């Protein structure tokens, strides 16, 4: 039924995403040209802004860390055949989990606070994902719709909590008080200084290590364990999975809980690594970037890592761009993100078939 042509592995995982990305960038370039700026100098400014100095590299990695968490979250659900659009809300609530621990015991030793806060972020994010998962598994509610609704509910809940409960007394803006010293995720420059290496101070922090571990965890889990195998089988063909003795409701719950836990870790990077307090809307759309990252990274942790770095660079380079080009702002990055989703996700067959034809015989086989 699928008219999709099969590509060799290197083309499937390397060439096709690259072609899709180029298409998105070309289209964005055309729009920048239409606006009256030079796409070429915009690109140069962006690259320079993203990797031109230690400062910018630090910020690029900091943003990339957010996207790794949300990208992995989307991909784990994808492998189970689920589309989790709720990464934004799960990250928001996960941050609440981390933040509550940090506020409660932030003055204790970091060796206790940080692991507890990470665990709490995972549990809160997972719990927020569990609701739509349970509704899908037991009541058949469409998970795309329920996760979208949960995003709005998370946003309303967090606004309520920050405005009425967690707000720092005597302060106007809806933010919690600052975390204690034990709740600070060590910055990479501080850690490197211990080894005698100087690096510019940036929000780039040890949550990035957690993100790399999460990549490893997802890789092992999806491809090296029987649970991961069951999850993939169920995602590819739920009926076959039932015959193989796999229970789809169980898979839905497991996949979404892991997905939500991963998204929740975003709060560790944003709040403990950078903001040191809970504030409004700190995920800032990273949950949606996760969709682009997962699609572009072909749902593989290595691909997601690369795509996250790329998007981190786009975000950091984009803010640099808006400083230097008065007619271009960061919205351009959101546009590129949307185009990447369009080309890597919805329109991927457009390039797949010509590529398959170009690559010859191997591509002719239809599945």
């Amino acid at each position: 039924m699928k008219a999709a042509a099969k590509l060799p592995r290197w083309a499937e995982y390397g060439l096709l995403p690259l072609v899709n990305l180029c298409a998105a960038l070309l289209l964005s370039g055309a729009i920048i040209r239409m606006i009256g700026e030079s796409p070429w100098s915009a690109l140069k400014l962006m690259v320079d802004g993203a990797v031109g100095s230690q400062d910018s590299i630090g910020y690029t990695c900091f943003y990339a860390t957010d996207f790794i968490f949300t990208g992995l979250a989307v991909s784990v659900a994808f492998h189970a055949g689920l589309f989790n659009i709720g990464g934004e809300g799960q990250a928001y609530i996960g941050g609440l989990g981390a933040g509550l621990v940090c506020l409660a015991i932030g003055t204790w030793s970091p060796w206790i606070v940080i692991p507890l806060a990470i665990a709490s972020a995972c549990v809160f994010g997972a719990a927020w994902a569990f609701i739509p998962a349970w509704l899908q598994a037991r009541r058949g509610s469409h998970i795309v719709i329920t996760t979208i609704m949960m995003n709005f509910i998370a946003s309303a809940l967090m606004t309520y909590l920050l405005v009425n409960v967690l707000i720092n007394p005597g302060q106007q803006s809806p933010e919690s008080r600052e975390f204690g010293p034990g709740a600070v995720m060590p910055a990479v420059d501080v850690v490197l200084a211990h080894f005698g290496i100087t690096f510019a101070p940036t929000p780039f922090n040890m949550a990035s290590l957690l993100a790399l571990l999460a990549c490893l965890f997802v890789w092992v889990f999806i491809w090296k364990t029987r649970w991961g195998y069951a999850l993939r089988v169920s995602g590819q063909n739920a009926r076959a999975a039932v015959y193989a003795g796999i229970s789809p409701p169980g898979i839905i719950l497991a996949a979404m809980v892991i997905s939500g836990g991963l998204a929740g870790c975003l709060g560790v990077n944003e709040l403990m690594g950078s903001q040191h307090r809970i504030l409004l809307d700190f995920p800032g759309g990273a949950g949606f970037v996760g969709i682009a990252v997962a699609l572009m990274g072909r749902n593989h942790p290595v691909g997601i890592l690369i795509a996250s770095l790329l998007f981190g660079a786009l975000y950091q380079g984009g803010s640099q761009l808006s400083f230097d080009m008065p007619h271009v702002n960061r919205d351009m990055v959101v546009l590129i993100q949307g185009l990447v989703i369009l080309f890597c996700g919805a329109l991927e067959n457009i390039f797949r078939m010509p590529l398959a034809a170009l690559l010859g015989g191997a591509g002719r086989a239809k599945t």
Partner: protein
Amino acid sequence: MDAYREIILLLAATMRVATPLVLAALAGLFSERSGVIDLALEGKMLAAAFASAAVASVSGSAWLGLGAGIAASSLLALIMAFACVTHRGNQVVAAMAINIVVAGLAPALALAWFDQGGQTPQLDGPGQRFLGLAWPWSQAARRHPFPGLAYAELVSGHNLIVYFAVVLAPACAWVLFRTRFGLRLRAVGENPLAVDTAGISVNALRYQASMISGLLCGVAGTYISTAASAGFVRDMTAGKGYLALAALIFGKWRPYPTLGACLLFAFADAGASRLQGVALPVVGVVPVQFILALPYVLTILLLAGFVGEAVAPKAIGVPYSKEK
């Protein structure tokens, strides 16, 4: 008398808040009934809001703005149909892509063209906006509160798009349930194979449904930027597209219940801003955020089957291919 006045004003506010929801929800009704999940309502409305405000401010005509809004929204509907119907791409992914593209593109173009930080210029010239129409004797009627105020606030004083929204639900119900096109449209959302076997093009029907959705979203977006406010600002649809989708599900994909859901959600919204800090009997002060989250909670409960049951069109979300 004050309570009466409050209620009338609340109902009038409900009508104004409900208008874009009704338009967008009924837009979604067509595409979803044809079997295409329409998560792109938000993006189509936002694009229309920008295009209409931009054209209205340059040309000075709200009607040209409306045309531009419909054109922009329909173009996106066409792209979505191209990706999902012709190329059988994932409908949810395509819609998210459209929403995100518009969220970036609209303020980027606004900045480049108008140089006002991602907004369009304030629409304050004559004819640039759809303004409320005063019906005959509405001013005089205000002096006689009992039927008069209701007449002045509820019947009179709205702009054309609100009246369009008022007649839209019956019109949609008629098209869907009383015309041949409507019958085919519903059939293609339930069982496209049967429609195909009858010699009717599944893709053509789905394209038509998408275009209707594009048109109505265009009107909804135009309302948001040129009637409800005076110009485009970043992210000004603020989730209304998703709220409309919730209303559509809450209305179980049927025109009148969908209209009812839109009115209910709009009533909650209009009420929330009036109830800020007001202590109600029995429950005390209800936080505004709870009222704003209510439509989403209700929709989830409905989808979970705790309050009635929502049965989606059977073939929704499934790309149709003849070879299967």
